[in-house]
């Protein structure tokens, strides 16, 4: 394969390059080459990948749980969980000072079932299972929101830096470099303690902080893609036709860089869930009455030895959810890369 023509960009997903010489692409017809790039092709490929579908299934389940929990908390004022289960933050035994009980030695509640607390109760007599259920809500919300913040902020900065180049690029990329050099977790800890010393909205601040801290990753990715898209003829043409820069970036540059960003965003959601769990564990994320997995692990720490089940289940929940995002992210990456197909 020669592959030296400036038009040959089959490795990336640029849609403009249909005019590839027939012998250049190993006998594929032009339409076939076009069909091999782009987002729709990626999604078609994804359907053939069982691991990616497993990831998608995990994400769907977690998101569904998160939506049910959100509706219950925001619209129904915990009516759903209280009727069929227990209040996640007050719990059935919250006012008693009884010691925590494990799976083998539960509170017995005749009005419900013999297995009233399948995963035991915590140090305040709250049901662990219902708190885990509610923890999904925080994890999913925080993961998606912070990634959207990082995605939008990073994409815009990266696109502007890559499109204009010059000193704007220098300033923005040095900024990204500085942001990148401070450890992610420490940066967010400092941001949380600056913006919310009383930790009233610590989770919200942490979410925004993780979003800001993930901006450099997206900015770099988009910037390198912009460098290649910028030289495309249709961008030249748009410029010559007097289209505004802002419109060119939004209409041509960003959409043409979408596939790698989607891969990164999927992986970033998993990472954000891990980081927020770590922050909550240190006390800089979700705060005590809230049912978050990291917060539950924090409360499990002093009771680690007598009550190990406190720490086992929240960790497994984090693991399960993050595995889902990583599976889908890996699947998307493979599907977006035409070289891997056979």
């Amino acid at each position: 394969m020669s592959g030296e023509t400036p038009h040959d960009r089959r490795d990336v997903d640029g849609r403009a390059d249909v005019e590839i010489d027939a012998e250049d692409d190993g006998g594929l017809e032009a339409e076939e080459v076009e069909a091999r790039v782009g987002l729709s092709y990626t999604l078609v490929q994804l359907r053939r990948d069982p691991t990616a579908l497993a990831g998608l299934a995990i994400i769907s389940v977690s998101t569904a749980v998160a939506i049910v929990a959100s509706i219950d908390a925001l619209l129904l004022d915990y009516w759903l969980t209280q009727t069929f289960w227990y209040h996640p933050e007050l719990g059935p035994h919250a006012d008693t000072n009884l010691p925590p009980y494990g799976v083998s030695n539960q509170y017995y509640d005749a009005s419900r079932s013999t297995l009233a607390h399948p995963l035991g109760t915590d140090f305040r007599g709250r049901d662990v299972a219902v708190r885990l259920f509610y923890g999904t809500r925080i994890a999913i919300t925080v993961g998606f929101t912070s990634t959207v913040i990082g995605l939008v902020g990073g994409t815009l900065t990266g696109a502007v830096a890559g499109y204009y180049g010059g000193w704007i690029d220098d300033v923005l990329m040095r900024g990204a470099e500085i942001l990148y050099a401070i450890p992610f977790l420490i940066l967010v800890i400092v941001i949380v303690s600056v913006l919310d010393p009383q930790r009233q909205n610590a989770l919200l601040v942490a979410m925004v902080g993780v979003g800001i801290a993930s901006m450099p990753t997206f900015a770099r990715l988009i910037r390198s893609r912009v460098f290649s898209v910028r030289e495309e003829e249709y961008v030249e043409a748009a410029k010559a036709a007097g289209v505004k820069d802002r419109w060119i970036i939004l209409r041509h540059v960003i959409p043409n860089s979408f596939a790698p960003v989607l891969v990164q965003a999927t992986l970033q959601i998993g990472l954000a869930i891990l980081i927020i769990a770590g922050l909550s564990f240190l006390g800089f994320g979700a705060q005590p009455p809230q049912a978050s997995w990291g917060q539950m692990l924090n409360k499990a720490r002093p009771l680690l030895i007598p009550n190990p089940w406190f720490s086992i289940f929240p960790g497994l929940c984090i693991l399960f959810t993050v595995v889902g995002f990583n599976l889908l992210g890996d699947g998307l990456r493979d599907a977006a890369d035409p070289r891997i197909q056979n």
Partner: protein
Amino acid sequence: MGLFRYATRRLLQAIPVLLGIATITFFLSNAVPGDPIDIMLGPSPAQEQKAAIRAKYGLDRPLWLRYITYLGDVSPIWLSTVDGFPYVAPEFGVDLGRSIHFGAPVTEKIKERLPVTMLLMGSAFTFALVTAVPLGVISAYRRNQPTDHVSRVVALVGVSTPSFWIGLELIIVFSFYLGWLPSNSLVMPWNLPPAADQAGLLSVEFWRIAASHQVPVLQHLILPTISLGTLQMAAITRIERSAMLEQLSQDYVQLARAYGVRDRKILRKHAFRPAQLPVITIVGLNLTTAFGGAVLTETVFSINGMGTLILTGVLNIDYPLIMGTTLVFGLIFVLGVILTDISYAYVDPRVSYGDQEA
């Protein structure tokens, strides 16, 4: 020659980054609401006492003056200040200020804590590389066979597990149920028991004590190392596998195969070296994630390292401590990335430190 010039240029490029880190941490930590003096002196301190301490730490001066003084203090070589106004004078050494919480110079605290974190990180990355590189190579070599599937699952679970949770579970199993390993703090390999000093450096007894001292050192290191290193191990395994797969599909490998070179030899002599480039990159870049992980791991295992030091700083609104530790983290990261770039050339002879084009 090329190496020296390249390293110098990279170090010069690092200066604006470090300046940026110093600036960000200065303004961020000074924006922390609350008064560190209040925290230090308790609920209702006398006004004169407060004023005296504010003056002692220079907190009574305006923000911009403090910023300039701070930059002058942290710059290692030439900038000096009188009442905040910079002038060029040969002033050597770094002054990171005094920690308000500890009442001691920040540099002193960092000197005390940094070796602990470095030992932990070094041990974690050693563990990660020693396990991940063979795992990734075997995984690529036996692609889509059971070995590959197992190693991919291990890597997937590794990148998806919170490091601090691994630490908690390891404590439950190995410290509590099995009672094999200690669960708190580290023992430094060079903190020998007093009997060693009495024996003297040249005696056989000294070396016997020093050797037996390494047993508790290792025992304390094992659990935190696994806790911190698992994420790195998994990340490196994934990179190693895909890099090896890419090399194995290259034309030169096909050619070697066609010549009848045996697979083992192809792996060892041809494909392995070029596949290490992305691995080197990821190790350099993952230094920051590992620092974040160190904060969590040190908390779980009650280790007095840099991570717990910065947490102490944040919880006590100790500006100098926050600024100093963050700056040191940034410095190590920048140096790590430069070192990564330099080590590229050892692996890839085509890299020429970029001075041909100049």
